[in-house]
């Protein structure tokens, strides 16, 4: 890992939202590194802080209600504390984003071509005609069958899959080094999901950029990711390569997530759901193992008072000691 070049380093990141005058950390002291030319996945249930983390990188949160502390360095340049103007040099140009819902993330009044060219206008000195050529190139690259037509179309004239392709074209327009994809396939149906994932994988290889993939879908992770980080309640609970996480999951949360995927052919009366829900921002336990309330059959002394990371194999880390004694409730 150390021989690979680091692209983005996140240290002690705290992203807090204001609720009734008090700030609550949605991302609670997170450290992670994204290398050049890799697909890095963050997995977790809804409400675990994945999107809060993703939006913190480009600081797209509403500033009035959000406080971001810690450090995010991109190519050794600190992003936190940059002025809006300086951030705009990086947004779309060096780091770009793909959003979850292609139905709402495209401006309904602007033609697809114009929305692609907007990024080019601010980050390149291409002429008007060159921008159009580039936009059509991009639309071809994301697999539009009639790029000339799509260029002139409005978002509502496209299907969901095509809109997501258009969004990918926007994200890739200025050859970014890092693409943050926040649940890029959640709003799409399964066959389209596979196409979009293939496309992203292919483009990532062609362009030698990195993807930060945020998802709750382990299938997507298995298909795409080189390295995986599992997040729970604002913290990272386990990280390692995709192989390690899928073949040798350690943390009770990771194991429960994997166990909750029904296998085709297996006849289940009940799905293996994880008990309870992710605590809300306000009720989140701030001490001890945050997953403990959802595995009440595990003895309290199995958890650490101040959970720390344990290296279970090279480059595979797990938070808290409870993984050592964990078993599923049904296995008792």
């Amino acid at each position, binding site marked *: 890992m150390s021989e690979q070049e680091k692209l983005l380093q996140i240290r002690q990141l705290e992203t807090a939202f204001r609720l009734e005058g008090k700030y609550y950390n949605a991302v609670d002291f997170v450290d992670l590194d994204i290398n050049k030319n890799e697909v890095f996945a963050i997995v977790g249930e809804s409400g675990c802080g994945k999107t809060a983390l993703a939006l913190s990188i480009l600081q797209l949160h509403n500033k009035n209600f959000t406080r971001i502390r810690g450090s995010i360095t991109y190519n050794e340049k600190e992003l936190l504390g940059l002025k809006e103007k300086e951030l705009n040099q990086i947004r*779309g140009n060096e780091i770009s984003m793909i*959003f979850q819902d292609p139905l709402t993330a*495209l401006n309904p*009044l*602007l033609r697809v071509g114009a929305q692609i060219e*907007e*990024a080019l206008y*601010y980050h390149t000195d291409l002429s008007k005609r060159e921008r159009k050529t580039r936009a059509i190139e991009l639309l071809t690259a994301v697999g539009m069958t009639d790029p000339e037509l799509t260029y002139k179309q409005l978002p509502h004239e496209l299907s969901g899959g095509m809109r997501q392709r258009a969004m990918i074209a926007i994200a890739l327009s200025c050859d970014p080094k890092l693409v943050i994809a926040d649940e890029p396939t959640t709003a799409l149906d399964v066959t389209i999901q596979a196409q979009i994932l293939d496309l992203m994988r292919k483009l990532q290889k062609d362009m030698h950029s990195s993807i930060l993939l945020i998802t709750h879908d382990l299938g997507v992770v298995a298909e795409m990711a080189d390295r995986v980080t599992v997040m729970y309640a604002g913290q990272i609970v386990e990280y390692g390569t995709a192989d390690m996480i899928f073949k040798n999951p350690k943390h009770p949360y990771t194991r429960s997530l994997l166990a909750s995927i029904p296998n085709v052919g297996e006849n289940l009366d009940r799905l293996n759901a994880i008990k309870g829900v992710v605590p809300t921002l306000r009720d989140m336990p701030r001490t001890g193992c945050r997953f403990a309330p959802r595995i009440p059959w595990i003895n309290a002394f199995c958890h650490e008072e101040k959970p720390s990371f344990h290296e279970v194999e090279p480059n595979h880390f797990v938070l808290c000691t409870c993984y050592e004694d964990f078993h599923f409730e049904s296995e008792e």
Partner: protein
Amino acid sequence: MWKMIVRRFLILIPQLLFISVVVFILAYFMPGDALSGLVDPTMTAEDIERQRELIGLNEPLPVRYVNWISAIIFEGDFGQSYGHKRAVTAVIGDRVSNTFWLSLVMLILTYLIAIPLGILAGRFGGKWPDKAILFYVFVAMSMPTLVLGILMILTFSFNLGWFPSSGSVNAIVLSQGTNWEIFVNRVHHMTLPAMTGALLGTVGIIFMLRANIIDRTASEYVKLARSKGVPTRVIFNKHILRNSIIPVTAGVGFAIAGLLMGVLFIEQIFGYPGMGSLFFESIGRRDYAVVNALIILFSVLTALGMLISDILLTVVDPRIQVQ
């Protein structure tokens, strides 16, 4: 575009016929008729009956309707006003331009005030400019036209003496002044009623624009635009404002319709000789020929208002394509 306009006019015909039937029947069921206001105590019952027979009031209802509507359609003749003893078209014609100009000025003032305030409130949602504007909106919302009208007269006309309290033009200026002096005098008379109407008319527009801007600011496509590195000012104008103004444009038609009703009251308060005061006078006198003609005129104007807002929408919203 032209096809749509022509088609809309064609749809207007059955709509207006329907309105005319309803209006005519309502007038029929109202107490009194055209003669009630003219009856002299010295008249005998036979005199009245003879007069009724003469002007066709004894015909059956459908015959009377057909007589009325065919005269309107084929001769543009809305009948005689028994109150004014002149043709209805002539009576209305005197007043129509006054009301038209007052409404137009009011409409323009309304949007001139509402759009900047709405944008300001939306842009600074939750901050002090927003709070100040919302305060104005709530005051204006709960203020009856009558109260504001009287307050305006009291302040600007009675106490300060800046504007006249009633009328549409000074008779002396009208007979002796140059065209420019007459124009200035008319504007001077129009200012208070138009401001009153505009200050109250802005409420809905400010509220809608503000809510739209706040809503669009939090939208996903604004996040996408920000993630592309588009400067804040451009995002506001290109992505937020344009998407917010569309519903406001759609409301222009309703604003025109509502305006006409508002004008009726404002003309009463300011003694402005327009269609509004004519409307109320005519109801009082049971002058149904004038009332019916006015209602139909208002209907036509309302329909035109809707058409105008549809045309405006096709201009601002590229999603609407006219086939």
